Each structure stands twice: as structure tokens, then as C-alpha cells.
């Protein structure tokens, strides 16, 4: 895949293949079983019976980062945890997506002012696709975030030359 990435011209074949791949990716988002804080409980509620994330094909929580496509960061990331979050993200296979769930992860939340130890938003550590604010977000909000992520994935091109989404696909991660 590597050499083919976004090099082919746009024609019927590449359009169709991209469409199929995009459909496959967006219909099968396997999240990582990763809970940090309060938001993890609401995330569990989303997996559970009332909300049932599996309806969208996203209900196969994988315990290992290698097999998961989506990392939902549910809860405050602090200095000690940030290194681990970064490593987990690095261990995931492309394409990988990040949802920042909750106010703490979006920008510090209640801990922004006096939290000497908290990272003010997980986007300081890893690139984030979708921010879901709330403290904690209602399950509906997380569902909405996942639906937005589905739309976003569906728009991404794989073989075709990229237009405006190039930045979101090929980010440079600095020296880290």
C-alpha cells in the first residue's frame, strides 16, 4: 500500500476501489479497550445494551493496539500517562483514528487551571480526529462522534491523489 498511497489519477476504477475501501473502513471501526477515567464508564455504556455501538460494526473492542483502528481517549491524561498514550498510538496500525472523549482530553477540562500534572488536551500528545466535549459526554454525544468519524473515514482517499484531505492522512509527527 505504501507506494500506491495517493499516487493514482482519479478515474472510475480508482474511484470505485476507494469507495469500497472507504466503506469497509468506516463500517468496521474496531476500538481499543482503553479506559482512563470517568468517560470510560460512559464509553462502556455506549458498548452496552441501551446504546449498542455494535450496530455500526464498531462493537468489537480489541485489547491490543495492533488490531484496533480507533483509540478513544476517555479521561484525563496526565504526565505519567501521556507517554503511554503516545506509545499506544504509535503501536497502532495505519489507518488509525483518535477520538478525544471528554472535556479533559479536549483541552484540560476542570483540571486546566490547577492541574499541575495534567496534559491540557490529548491533542498535545497525539493527533486527534474527533473531539467529543462534555464532562462526561453523554453516550449520544460519543455516538455522534463516531458517526462523524465514519463520515470522515468515508471521505478519505486511498489510491487517488488527495485533495484537501491530504493533511489529515499524512501528518508528520515531528521527531517523536
Amino acid at each position, binding site marked *: *500500500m505504501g507506494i500506491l498511497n495517493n499516487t493514482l489519477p482519479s478515474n472510475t476504477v480508482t474511484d470505485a476501489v476507494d469507495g*469500497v*475501501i472507504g*466503506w*469497509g*473502513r468506516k*463500517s*468496521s471501526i474496531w476500538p481499543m*479497550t482503553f479506559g482512563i477515567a470517568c468517560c470510560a464508564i460512559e464509553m462502556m455504556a455506549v458498548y*452496552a*445494551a441501551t446504546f*449498542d455501538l*455494535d*450496530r*455500526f*460494526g464498531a*462493537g*468489537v473492542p*480489541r*485489547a*491490543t493496539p*495492533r*488490531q484496533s*483502528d480507533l483509540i478513544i481517549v476517555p479521561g484525563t491524561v496526565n504526565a505519567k500517562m501521556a507517554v503511554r498514550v503516545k506509545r499506544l498510538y504509535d*503501536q497502532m*496500525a*495505519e*489507518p488509525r483514528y483518535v477520538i478525544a472523549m471528554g472535556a479533559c482530553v479536549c483541552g484540560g477540562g476542570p483540571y486546566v487551571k490547577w492541574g499541575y500534572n495534567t496534559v491540557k488536551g490529548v491533542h498535545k500528545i497525539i493527533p486527534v480526529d474527533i473531539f467529543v466535549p462534555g464532562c462526561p459526554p453523554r453516550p449520544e454525544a460519543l455516538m455522534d462522534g463516531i458517526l462523524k468519524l465514519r463520515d470522515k473515514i468515508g471521505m478519505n482517499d*486511498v489510491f487517488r491523489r488527495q485533495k484537501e484531505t491530504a493533511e489529515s492522512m499524512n501528518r508528520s509527527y515531528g521527531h517523536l
Partner: protein
Amino acid sequence: MEALIGLFGELFGLEGTLALSAAYAVCIGSILGFVTVYSMFAIWMERKVAAHIQVRMGPMVTGGWHGWAQSVADAVKLLFKEDIIPTRANAFMFWIAPAVVFCGVFAGLIVVPFAVGVQVVDLHLGVFFIIAIASIEVIGVIIAGWASNSKYSLFGAVREAAQVVSYEIPTATALLVPILVVGSFRLNDFNTWQAEHHWLIFHSPWLAMAALIFFISSLAGCKRAPFDLPEAESELVSGFHTEYSGMRFSFFFLEEYTSMFVAALLTATLWFGGFNLPFVDSSAWHPALAMPIGIVVLLAKTFFFIFVQMWLRWTLPRLRVDQVMSMGYKYLVPWAFVALIATAVWDYYGWGWLPL
């Protein structure tokens, strides 16, 4: 098989080795296709069964009607996912392990009679072949666990080795019990014997016991709950396939569901009448009618046992590793031998049990 060779001779004028190769290619291709389609269906079924046990709906969106295309989407995604080989892993071993695992269980399918005449090779040692070839799978798992260079993977591989090797004994011993009654290793003979007499599960209490022992130990062989220790998610993250991603990981999925299929199919063939309908004598039917009905009947029985496996998985907690071992050695092995000897005695005196 022979029919296929003849067909190729008639249609394309192929003869000898060429016809044989073409026939093999078609057979293997169709089994491969079957396995792929079956696995996708089984994964979808597993998710639906799990969901309905857990008061939810399971996949509902992908593909429209009840998320039927969910597994297709999963496959497409896995196919186009990055394939990571960890730097510290042994790359060749890491690469070859999924193939070894998958070949092991896949090869077992070639001796299975799906209906009258629908069988790739009618081996005289069919049952023996399946058991023997399925043991290759454990080697692949050990390779995978070792080559990943991860502690969780290693734990998973060692657990798998201990568990599968231990449970081969009760599996094989329990299989010997119907073999003793029928007097053959050939899978087709079981179908004909059960068509002529009765289903072997009703033959004697010892055969029912052997069926139970076989089913339990085949769960352990397939790494299904409550014996899913090699990939125990809450203990070992993902066990031996912790480091696998993308398509390689999906081979382990295929392997798991295919070995479930083989186990369920052996249960159905050896004890539950194979492709025979109950209370109906289909031996005189025209092959064109008997073949599709046979396939449907056999698959229906097989999927029932697959359903039971899923049912157990989503109901029971997982055993601990030493409890798995003690269950195998302290209960299943002795009782399998008891069933074997008791059947020998039972059949020697020709005792009946049920009015069949």
C-alpha cells in the same frame, strides 16, 4: 472427485494428470471459497448470537438487512490495513505462522463427506487424518507466540501448547468409540452405518458419553470459551496474536472458525447421523435430490453445534489454566477410556439400549 475428473474429460478433453490437477484445483478452490464465506457468516453469526444473548442487536447498519455485510466490511478493512512486523520479532517465523495455522485446519476439510459423492478424497483413514493434520495448528500458534517477541504472546503460545496437546488425548480416545462400533476410520462409512442402523448417539450410553467428551475437548482444541486461555483477553491482552495486525490477524480468525466448523462437523457426522435425515431413509433417493438435501442437513446439524459453541462462549466464565489441565487429565481422559472399554464390552455382548 472421480465425477469431476470424468466431467473434465468429457468437457475439455483433459486426461490423466492434467485432469487430476484441474479437478484438485477446482476442489481446493471451492473449499477455500466455502471456508471464506463460511467464516464470514460465522463471524456475523457469532456477533448476532452474542448480541441477542446480551440483550442488544449486534450489527444492524452495514449492508442493510441486519448488518449482513458486516464481515465483508471487516475483511475489506483488514485487507487494507497496515501490516506491522515488530522490529524485535523474527520476521520469517512471524510471517509464516498464520499460514501454518490456517493450513492445518483447512487441510482437514478435504476428507469430509458433505453429501453422497460430495467429498474431495474418500480416505480410508479420514478421522485419523483430520486429527493428525489439525495438530499442525498448534505448531503454528507456538511459532506465532514465539516469533512475536512479546511476553503475552509467549504466554499464550505456551498455554496453547499445554492445552491442545493435553486435550488431543481425550479427543482421540472419544473418537475411537464410534470407530469401534462402526469398524472403520472412513467418514463415509459412518454415514452409511447410521443410515442403516441408527444414530450412534443412541447406540449406547457410552457413545453419548463419548460424544460429550469429544464436544468438550474439541472446545478446548478450538480455543473456545470456557477454554479460551491462549487468547484470554482479560489476562493476556490477546494472547498469541497480540502483535498481529491486519490480514495476518484475520488468518487466526479464519483458523478459529474453521476449526470450530471441523469440530462441529465431526460431532454431527460421527454421532448425529451425518447427512442423513432422522426417520427418513434417503438411500434410495436419486443423487440429484439426495445431494442438496444431504448438504443442507449436514450443514444444519453442524451449525447447530457451532451455535452451541457460541452459546457456551457467551455464557460461561473462563477456567483457570490449571483447572483446564486438571479437567482434561483427571476427568476427560479417564472417562474417555471408560467409554472405550465399556463400548467394547457392550458391543461384544450385543446389548441394546434404546428400542432402535
